């Protein structure tokens, strides 16, 4: 896939090509491994600015390993430009004590059969992860997320926004393990089913015995745009400790009739009104993307996806 014009700033972008890193600016510590790439962030000065990474399509496994050493703070936007011959991809992130990561992770493009994403995030003491994910892929997609809160006072915030169109099947399995006391997680899933797509999300958050004062919350919201679409969510909490704060919620339905009526009463036609309401729904993802060029591509792709066309 050709790199969009919005990523041509070679100093601020790392582009992973088919077999090599096409350009990496001034960022050190990138190694090629047998199954992908590995990035070790040990020097705060060299990684202080937000960094954009672009993953072009690969036939070989495309795993990315990121390791943030003690006390490092980093902000990454990782864009996967999915293409039809891409194999499964993996993102493995490890945070040492006190490390902080803001991660925007967007998958966009077209896949012919089953596209599979594996993500594992492991956190040590007082580390923080603020993850925002967007999935707008034509083709069946499965994403498996595994979060290990292995450190005391570690904190995870994960927002996933997925849009499925046509007859696609989207499934997501999310597991959050609170393995240490005073750990905190907040998981939000925002789902939009257009056309006849079927979406299924299974979220399990586990707080084991002894992990007191941990907090885990999950919130799932889904909008079904057409009658033949479906969204199912299985929110689960497995709690084996008394002194915790845990909760889950799920709301799935069609576009809010009051919101639609309000927009229509201002002369906005139904198609535009629905698009506007959905764009409002997508705001949490849009707000996180600081590349205006990519934002345009993303919103255009989402529009196509909602109209039932290929991305």
């Amino acid at each position: 896939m050709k790199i969009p014009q919005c990523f041509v700033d070679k100093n601020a972008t790392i582009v992973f090509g088919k077999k090599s890193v096409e350009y990496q600016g001034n960022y050190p510590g990138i190694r090629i491994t047998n199954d992908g790439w590995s990035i070790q962030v040990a020097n705060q000065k060299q990684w202080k600015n937000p960094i954009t990474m672009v993953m072009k399509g690969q036939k070989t496994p495309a795993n990315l390993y990121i390791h943030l050493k003690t006390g490092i703070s980093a902000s990454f936007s990782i864009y996967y430009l999915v293409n039809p011959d891409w194999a499964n991809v993996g993102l493995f992130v490890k945070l040492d004590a006190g490390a902080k990561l803001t991660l925007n992770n967007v998958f966009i493009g077209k896949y012919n059969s089953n596209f599979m994403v594996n993500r594992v995030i492991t956190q040590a003491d007082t580390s923080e992860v603020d993850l925002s994910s967007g999935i707008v892929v034509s083709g069946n997609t499965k994403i498996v997320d595994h979060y290990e809160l292995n450190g005391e006072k570690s904190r995870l915030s994960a927002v996933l926004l997925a849009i499925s169109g046509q007859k696609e099947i989207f499934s997501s399995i999310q597991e959050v393990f609170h393995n240490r006391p005073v750990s905190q997680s907040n998981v939000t899933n925002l789902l939009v089913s257009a056309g006849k797509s079927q979406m299924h999300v299974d979220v399990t958050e586990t707080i084991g015995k002894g992990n007191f004062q941990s907090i885990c919350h999950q919130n799932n919201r889904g909008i079904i745009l057409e009658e033949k679409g479906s969204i199912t969510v299985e929110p689960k909490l497995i709690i084996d400790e008394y002194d915790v704060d845990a909760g889950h919620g799920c709301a799935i339905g069609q576009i809010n009739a009051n919101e639609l009526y309000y927009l229509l009463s201002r002369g906005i036609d139904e198609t535009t009104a629905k698009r506007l309401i959905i764009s409002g729904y997508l705001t949490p993802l849009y707000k996180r993307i600081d590349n205006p060029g990519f934002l345009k591509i993303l919103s255009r792709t989402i529009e196509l996806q909602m109209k039932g066309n290929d991305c």
Partner: protein
Amino acid sequence: MAILEIKNLIVSVEDQVILDGINLVVRGGETHAIMGPNGTGKSTLAQVIMGHPKYHIDCGEILLDGRRLNEMSVDERSRAGLFLAMQNPTEVPGVTNFDFVKTAVQAHLLSGQHLRIGKFILALEDAAKELKMGSGLAHRYVNEGFSGGEKKRNEILQMKLIKPSIAFLDEIDSGLDVDALRIVGENVTAMKSPDLGLILITHYQRLLDSIVPDFVHIMIRGKIVKTGGRELIAKIDAEGYDWLKVELGIDEFVEKKKPVSLGTCATKSLK
């Protein structure tokens, strides 16, 4: 000059008649006030005219400049020139006021016309300033986190930019403090022109002190039972609606209660 004609309008919900033969003509330049006790169909009338999908017209006709609105969708009615400032404006999370109002204004342009964005921004800023809405309004999400007064002022802001020919203001005074009521009153009064017909739905004289009506209608049980001038407002404010009982021979205003079946109990015969 616009003209809205409501002819013998009958609307029912679940076999209960809620508008019972409404007749009303509103011309551009006129201001009408509709008053009446709670639950008599004032807001329903506004929603029916706007085309709310909850209501079905059993009988009657709504015409705007001679065009029949009955079969038109909500957005078509708006584009034809109707506006409804709602009693409880809806929040639309994630959609900025700027995008919302811009899209609405764009929707009202004739085909071939294009919105000049610079001009629109200036108009939006001016309208917000006139309504004392403060900066940052454009980037706030529609009605989300707005106070009651801000929501009502936001309705008037939309009205100023959309420029309808017939506007219903449904209890625009509720939730407004004295200063905000004055601001809304001044702004609406400034919009009065032969190109705009106004219908104010209210319970209180205070709104009608700032936006002076030409006609006052009293609605009871889905009917306009009395029409008059400003003298009616003072009388209602002083005496309520009881005096109409005597004048119109209405015994009581209590809602008709329908019998409700509580179902049947399972029975068991003992031998």
